[in-house]
C-alpha cells in the first residue's frame, strides 16, 4: 500500500477514480439540472452550444450535457466492478480446481475456456446481448461470460506452479487438508496477479460496456450513459460537437485513471519490490 502511494501516477489514478465515484454518488446535488440528468427533455433549448447556463451545452432533446455526464458517472465503475467480481467469482474457483486437481478435470475446464477464448469476445458479447435482450444487467452478464476464461487461466497457471512448491508439499505431508492447503497457501499466491490483472482490465471492461451501449445493446434511452450519449450525439457531430465529445472525454479520463491505478498496483505488488 505504501508503495502504491509513493507512485505519483497511481495516486493521480486513484484520485480521479475517487472523484468519479463521488460525482456519481452525489449526482443529484452536483448536477445543475438533475431532472434532465434523469432524462427529462427540454425542447425549448435544443442544441445550445456551451455557455454560462449550460457549461457543456445541450443535446438534441435540450438536456444539459454536464448534468447527463454527472449522472452517467454512476454507471461505468459499478458496471466494471460488477463484471470483474462476476469474472472472479466464476474464474477463480474453476481455475483453482483445474490447477489443483489436474488431470481430466483440468482438461475439461481448460478446453471450455479455449472455446470461449477462440471467439472474438466483442462479437460474442454482441450475440449474447442480442439473444437475451439489451439492458445494463444483460450487458454485464454478457461481459462476464466473455471475460471469465482469462481469470480461470491466470489462476490455473499460478495454482499449478504453486502446488508443486515444496512448502505446499510439506503442508500436504503434514496432513493439512486440501481445502486448507488451497486457502492458506494457494489462494494467497494468486491474489497479487489477480488484483493487478483485474485493475488493468477495469478500463477495458468499461470501454466494452460503453461500446455495447454505443451500438444500442447496453443502456437504453433515456438513461444517461456515456456510450449511449456518444451514440446520440453522433448524427450531430459536425453541427453540435459537444454532445458526443464531452462524454468521450469523461470516458477517456476514467479509463486512463484505471490504467494508471493498474500499472501502479502491478509495480507495487511485484515480488521484486517487496521481498
Amino acid at each position: 500500500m505504501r508503495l502504491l502511494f509513493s507512485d505519483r501516477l497511481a495516486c493521480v489514478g486513484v484520485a480521479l477514480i475517487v472523484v468519479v465515484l463521488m460525482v456519481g454518488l452525489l449526482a443529484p446535488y452536483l448536477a445543475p439540472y438533475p431532472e434532465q440528468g434523469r432524462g427529462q427533455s427540454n425542447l425549448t433549448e435544443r442544441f445550445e452550444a456551451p455557455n454560462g447556463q449550460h457549461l457543456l451545452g445541450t443535446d438534441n432533446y435540450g438536456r444539459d450535457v454536464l448534468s447527463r455526464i454527472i449522472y452517467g458517472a454512476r454507471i461505468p465503475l459499478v458496471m466494471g466492478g460488477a463484471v470483474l467480481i462476476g469474472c472472479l467469482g466464476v474464474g477463480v474457483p474453476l481455475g483453482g480446481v483445474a490447477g489443483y486437481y489436474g488431470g481430466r478435470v483440468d482438461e475439461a475446464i481448460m478446453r471450455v475456456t479455449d472455446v470461449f477464448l477462440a471467439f472474438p469476445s466483442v462479437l460474442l458479447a454482441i450475440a449474447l446481448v442480442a439473444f437475451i435482450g439489451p439492458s445494463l444487467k444483460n450487458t454485464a452478464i454478457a461481459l462476464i461470460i466473455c471475460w471469465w476464461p482469462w481469470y480461470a487461466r491466470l489462476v490455473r497457471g499460478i495454482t499449478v506452479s504453486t502446488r508443486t512448491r515444496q512448502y505446499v508439499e510439506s503442508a500436504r505431508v503434514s496432513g493439512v487438508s486440501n481445502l486448507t492447503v488451497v486457502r492458506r497457501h494457494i489462494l494467497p499466491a494468486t491474489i497479487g496477479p489477480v488484483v493487478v490483472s483485474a485493475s488493468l482490465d477495469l478500463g477495458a471492461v468499461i470501454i466494452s460496456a460503453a461500446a455495447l451501449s454505443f451500438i444500442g445493446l447496453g443502456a437504453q434511452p433515456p438513461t444517461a450513459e456515456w456510450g449511449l450519449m456518444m451514440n446520440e450525439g453522433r448524427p450531430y457531430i459536425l453541427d453540435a460537437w459537444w454532445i458526443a465529445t464531452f462524454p468521450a472525454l469523461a470516458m477517456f479520463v476514467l479509463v486512463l485513471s484505471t490504467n494508471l491505478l493498474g500499472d501502479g498496483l502491478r509495480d507495487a505488488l511485484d515480488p521484486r519490490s517487496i521481498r
Partner: protein
Amino acid sequence: MSRDSVLALQDLCVYFPLKRGAFRRSRQFAYAVDGVTESVGRGEILALVGESGCGKTTVARAVLGLTKPTSGSIMLQGVDMAQAPHKVRQEAGAGVQVVFQDPASSLSPRMTVHDIVAEPARTRGRPDGESLKSKVLELLDTVGLDTQHLWRRPHEFSGGQCQRIAIARALASDPYLVVLDEPTSALDVSVQARILTLLSALRDARGISFLLITHDLAVAQCMADRVAVMYLGRIVEKGPTHAVLSNPLHPYSVALLASVPSPDPTQRSGAAVLGGEVPSPVNPPTGCRFHPRCPQRTDICSHTDVRLREVSDGRSVACHLAPETPVGA
C-alpha cells in the same frame, strides 16, 4: 527385516507414464524406482545414496505419499499405506515429516516462523494460542533459534537458519520418521556440519528415525547407520555404513567412492572415473543395469538380470561377480 521397523518398503516400483497424448494411452514408462526393498528401524538413520536421476528422491516422495507407487507396498509402523483404512493411514502418515533440500522454497514466503512451525501441530488438533506458542518456542529452542525470530518471515533468515526452521517444523508433530531430502546440499560446508550435528543430536534425544537422501557420501558417512546405494531405480548394494564405504563390493559403489575428491593429492586413487552417461530409465539396459558402464563386465552381465543377495551379515549386493564372503568383512 526387523519387526521393529518404522518404515518397510517391499518391492516398491514407481513408473511414470511418458508422452500422454490427448487420446492415446501411454505405453512407455520411465522406470524411476524398480523394485526397492528396504527398511528403517526405530532410531535408525538409513542413507540412500546415488547420483541424480537414480530414483532416490522418488523413493522419498513415495514414502511421503506425494507420489503414488505403481506396485509394491509401503508400510509405516506396520500400516500398509495402500490398503489400510483412511483413518489409520492418516494417523500413520502424520508421524512422517520431511525436510527438503532448498529451505528457501520449502518455507512459505508469506507465513511467519511461528505459523510455519505451528502448521503440522495445528493439524493434529493442538489448541491454539499460548500453549501452541510455547510449543513453537520449545521447538525453536531445540534447533537453536529463539523468541526474537518468532514473528519474522523466511526471507529474513540465512539458508542455515531456514533449514533449522524447516527442522523445527518437521519436529512439530512428534514424528517417528523424518525424510531428509538432501538436507544440506544447498548450504555452506561449515553450516552443513552444524545442521548434521543437530540432526544426530535429535536422533539420540528423541529416537527419531531418518531416511536420508543424499548424493554426498561424506554426509552419509557421518550420519548414517546403514547405506543403500541406488543406481537406475534399484538398490545395488546395501549394508552398514562403515563396511560399505570402506570396502565397497559393487563396481558402481567403487566408482562412486572413487569420484569423491580427496583433499590429499598424494592419496589420489588411480581408479578410472566412470565413462558414459546414466542410461535412460525409459529403456533400462538388459541384464545387470550397470553393465554398459561397468569396468568389470562379463558375458553374463549383459543378459542375466541380477538381484540383491546377502553376502555377509547385513550386507547385500546385486552383482554377478561379487564374492560370496567379502574380504575383510
